[in-house]
């Protein structure tokens, strides 16, 4: 971390609105990408991002410059997303995979240069529980035990949700090719 980042952080801690905007400008795309993975829609992702940045500004005094700022901010945003998702009911309800696959609208996006966007769309179509476990396990690299502790579920549930998420995604991919 260079001295410019440190100065930026100190200014943000002191409530400097320009510094806060600069911090937002630097990290908004990366963090919004994270939010999109956890949200079921773009609108929900924007809610995550907004609450995530507010929390970042409030808790910047907890950040220690020994670690990566982006990793810390990413963690804060993921926690905010998980808090939102925990409030939802039926987070880990069972959903018929075939039904999900049928509901998916086949688009040509996969064959375009927006492949990642299409994959994101697939993930967003997953039920909240599937999507959350898939993100934590596959993208963030959490273990099932850590996911279980984080979400207040048992490991078996985490494993079954991941399995169903992957099955669903395979079916969705088969659907579009």
């Amino acid at each position, binding site marked *: 971390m260079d001295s410019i980042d440190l100065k930026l952080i100190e200014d943000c801690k002191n409530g400097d609105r320009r510094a806060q905007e600069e911090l937002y400008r630097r990290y908004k*795309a990366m963090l919004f990408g994270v939010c999109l993975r956890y949200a079921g829609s773009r609108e929900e992702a924007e809610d995550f991002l907004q609450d995530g940045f507010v929390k970042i500004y409030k808790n910047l005094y907890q950040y220690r410059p020994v670690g990566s700022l982006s990793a810390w901010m990413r963690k804060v945003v993921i926690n905010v997303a998980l808090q939102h998702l925990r409030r939802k009911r039926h987070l880990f309800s069972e959903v018929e995979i075939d039904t999900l696959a049928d509901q998916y609208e086949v688009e040509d996006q996969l064959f375009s240069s927006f492949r990642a966007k299409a994959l994101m769309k697939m993930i967003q179509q997953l039920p909240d529980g599937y999507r959350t476990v898939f993100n934590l396990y596959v993208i963030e690299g959490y273990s099932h035990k850590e996911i279980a502790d984080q979400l207040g579920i048992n490991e078996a549930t985490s494993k079954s949700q991941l399995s169903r998420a992957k099955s669903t995604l395979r079916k969705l991919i088969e659907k579009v090719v």
Partner: protein
Amino acid sequence: MDQEKNNDNLESFFRRELEHYQEEPGLDMWDKIAIAIPPKPGFSVGRMVALWKFPILLGLLVLSLIFAYFQYQRAEKLDQNSHQQALEIAALQQQMEELDLKFSLAKGKAQEVDLEPSNAKAKVESKTTNQEQANINGIQKQQTIAGTDRPQVQSPIQKSDLIQIATTISPPVALPQPPTIDLSEPQSVPITKRPIDFLHSKQLVQYNKASPLLTVPDLKALRGGYYPRFSVGAWSGNIVVQYYAVDRRVSPATGTSTSVFLSKTSGFSAGIHLDEHWSLHTGLGFRNNGFSLSDQVSLEYTYHNSETNAEGNPVGLYTFTQEGALTFRAQIVNELEQQNPEPIITEGESFTVDFNSAYRLRYYSIPLLVKYQIGQQRFHTYLKGGFIWNKLMRDWAFFPNITFSSGRLTAANPRLTVSAARDNYFEFALAMGVGYNITPRIELALEPSYFQAITSMLNVKPQTYGLRGYINYMF
């Protein structure tokens, strides 16, 4: 895509595609955020604690140590006083034994001179007076009670000394049973009052049974009470600090008496989180136990001691023994009226005494508890267990009210020994609680708990159950 779809590398495919995925949010996003964030970071307890956590913890530790040091000094002073008073008691007892011996000697000589001619008797008496009177302090052959050949003994021990004995704090060790002839000299009272003088001497602490007068509630039976405790705790990293504000126990007493057992505790505790599950807690607490009770005891007047006081009034003695050990003794001065020289209280007359007594115990305590938290969810459970060391700081007792069934009687200087409680007692503590984090920083917890004394507090090992409520603030 086909290749990636068909192999089992779905996870790596998604990870590679989405791990660093970026997308621009809406243009108005910053405006929304700018409205939502506070203009400037105001004063925040959490913020201040995060910045100053180590100085704060160090300060708390230093304050606790200073407090503990002064309490220790105070307890030491009490111990020294107790030791000094114990020495004085021993000296007095030795003096009593000597008096008893001298009394026997004097009596023997008196019997001896009865066999001598009158001039020889006068000579011996004169010799005794000249040679021994100075050494035999306080022994005065004043008069002989009718029906006995026992002389009246004037004790050299002043009343203030006996009061000192009665209020002495001494270690609960077995002491030899003192002779029963050394009764205090009662105060002069109006002719219409019949004083009764309670003398709970050291017998109360010598034996394992409580005096019938000081009916200590059966603390083993004191179950089912509740004692809510509200605590504010805080931790930073692996450190936990908790402040206990209130801890009150209310339990009904059982037995013949009606009483209330109260206990208030306050203090600090601190702990170290060894990992996400295990934590170790200790601290310094202060516990005020107190109970009051009302009881009734029946006394039967026995005029067996055959002694009189300085005014010539007969002094009766009520003695209660239990399993062969003297546990309670009352002195009854049966003052004679000038118009009616016969004793008003007659042999075998019984009467009842109703009294209220209060007992106070003050301890400081140091717990050592291990806590195991099951899970890290918002709603979680935990187990806690360990030991609590309680050190007696002070104990005292008093009779706020005593009444007699006979209006002719009144109490004079009721007092009792206050050293029945042990200096130290240990408790085993076990608790199982449920916690709920209303925010990541604030935890509410309900904790059913159980305490079992390993060593006796009074003459029993109290057991206590309860439900505690906690509010923990984490930083």
